[in-house]
């Protein structure tokens, strides 16, 4: 029953129908809980002067944006570091995940379910002690504080998503199409690159976006392996916030927020229901 429809007849009987009210209040409260903190971030990112007891900022502007993006503001280095690391992490984990996923989805594999579960290990244990010890390991072989070191940590972290989603994407491709290509003379590699791979591409792109976002947002691993030599956006956010510079921290947070929200809005276009139904099978 919509609001307008439910009101009209009850007013006619002089007994207001207020059954929609608790529902509307609950949804309003939820909207406040979700968008209140987000609005707060936006205000901080554009506030130039904001102090107690003023509820809202006194002056808005881009002054802090200018300061953040100055060469010595550090944001440009962090942004380019973050993007380079995320792209390398996507390339690395897809290079590892695509062959593995094809094998898991299509080929006769001994201990298949055990292998699939092995790729879940990074999700099943707290990552914190692992990162501490990776940092120690990398320190010994000179990888600490290098881009490559951070990329390796992000590849390991992203591999779970890459393999599980890509396996589901290959499993959702109709096997008969592949067999048809083989029966009219295509070799196994040709059938893979001309038939299977293009059909599985939306799912593989989705897994790539997942890895990209996970790498962009990753804090703990970068904190132990990268800092202070390699700064990424999350590390910049953390140091700015720790120094009480909420404008810089909020601007950085906003830069990290935009790709995450965009992905939330389009994820269903890449991850279709037929692929989702195959996850973990």
């Amino acid at each position, binding site marked *: 029953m919509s609001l307008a429809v439910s009101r009209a007849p009850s007013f006619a009987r002089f007994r207001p129908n207020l059954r929609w009210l608790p529902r509307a209040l609950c949804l309003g409260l939820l909207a406040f809980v979700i968008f209140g903190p987000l609005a707060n971030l936006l205000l901080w990112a554009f506030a130039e002067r904001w102090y107690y007891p003023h509820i809202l900022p006194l002056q808005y502007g881009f002054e802090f944006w200018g300061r953040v993006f100055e060469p010595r503001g550090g944001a440009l280095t962090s942004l380019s570091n973050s993007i380079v690391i995320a792209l390398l992490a996507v390339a690395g984990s897809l290079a590892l995940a695509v062959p593995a996923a094809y094998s898991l989805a299509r080929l006769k594999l001994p201990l298949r379910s055990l292998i699939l579960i092995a790729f879940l290990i990074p999700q099943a244990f707290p990552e914190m002690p692992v990162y501490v010890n990776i940092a120690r390991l990398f320190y010994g072989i000179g990888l600490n504080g290098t881009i490559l070191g951070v990329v390796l940590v992000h590849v390991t972290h992203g591999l779970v998503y890459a393999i599980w989603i890509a396996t589901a994407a290959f499993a959702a491709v109709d096997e008969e199409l592949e067999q048809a290509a083989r029966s009219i003379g295509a070799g196994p590699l040709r059938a893979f690159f001309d038939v299977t791979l293009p059909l599985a591409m939306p799912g593989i792109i989705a897994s790539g976006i997942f890895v990209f976002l996970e790498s962009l947002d990753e*804090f703990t691993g970068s904190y132990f392996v990268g800092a202070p030599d390699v700064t990424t956006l999350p590390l910049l956010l953390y140091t700015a916030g720790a120094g009480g510079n909420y404008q810089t921290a909020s601007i950085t947070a906003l830069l990290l927020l935009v790709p995450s929200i965009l992905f939330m809005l389009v994820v269903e276009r890449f991850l279709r229901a037929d692929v989702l139904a195959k996850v973990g099978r």
Partner: protein
Amino acid sequence: MRERLVGLGLVLPALLTILLLFVYPLTTSVTGAFETEAGAGLGNFAKVWELYATDILYTLAIVSLSTVLIALFSIIIGGYLTLGENPRAVAILRWLYRWPLFIPFIVVGQIMRTFLAKNGLMNNLLVAAGLLTPLQTTSFLDWRGIVIAFVWKQTPFVALLVAGAMAALDRGTIEAARNLGASRLRILVEIVVPQVRGTLLVGMILSFVTMMSVLSVPLMISAQTPTMITADMAFRINAYGDYGVADALGLISLAMTFAVAFAYLRQSVRERSR
């Protein structure tokens, strides 16, 4: 036979990466917990007990409370999406609840730190609305802030799983109960939730493990004592280079997640054998 070898060869590089860069450091973290300057022993654990016993309980309490709240809100959201009779309200809820899904923890930490502070936007709005006086406002930047940040970020994920499982249920039993006059709350508690319990538990365990290893939220919201053991581990390493105590704390967080996972496995085995 050849196909098996090719298959293994394709999986091997990825598998080796996980073994070398996750499983191996994991084992050194376990062995490292028992390494002290005086040789192998329990010295690190004695130090942990002396310095961080409160923090361990504090961590367990925060993560458990957050997990329970996440489950509760996920059931409410999933339940309304499945049983709600007002299509417009269902559509609004479906659009609304997912926003925090992909927002990184570090951003959640920053957002909540400014939103929940004593003079933050939340208190300012409550004062402006006349619900509080300026003297009554308190900062939420303690255990409450951490719980709020965790619940805000993780509920959409579990709700998404739970709502998906609820949507896949057989509508027949629900309609039948409805025709017999059962209230929607009763249908949710007695028919829908028992059938999606497996999915709900998986979501709860994944959230528990995730929250156990988040460093940014406790560092940003409340890093003073008492704090969560992830923040303590970072402090031990940054301030003292003390890997032994950090690894001992790590082993305790591992033990907590194992206890939860074991309880789940035992439960599901018992259910299957029934």
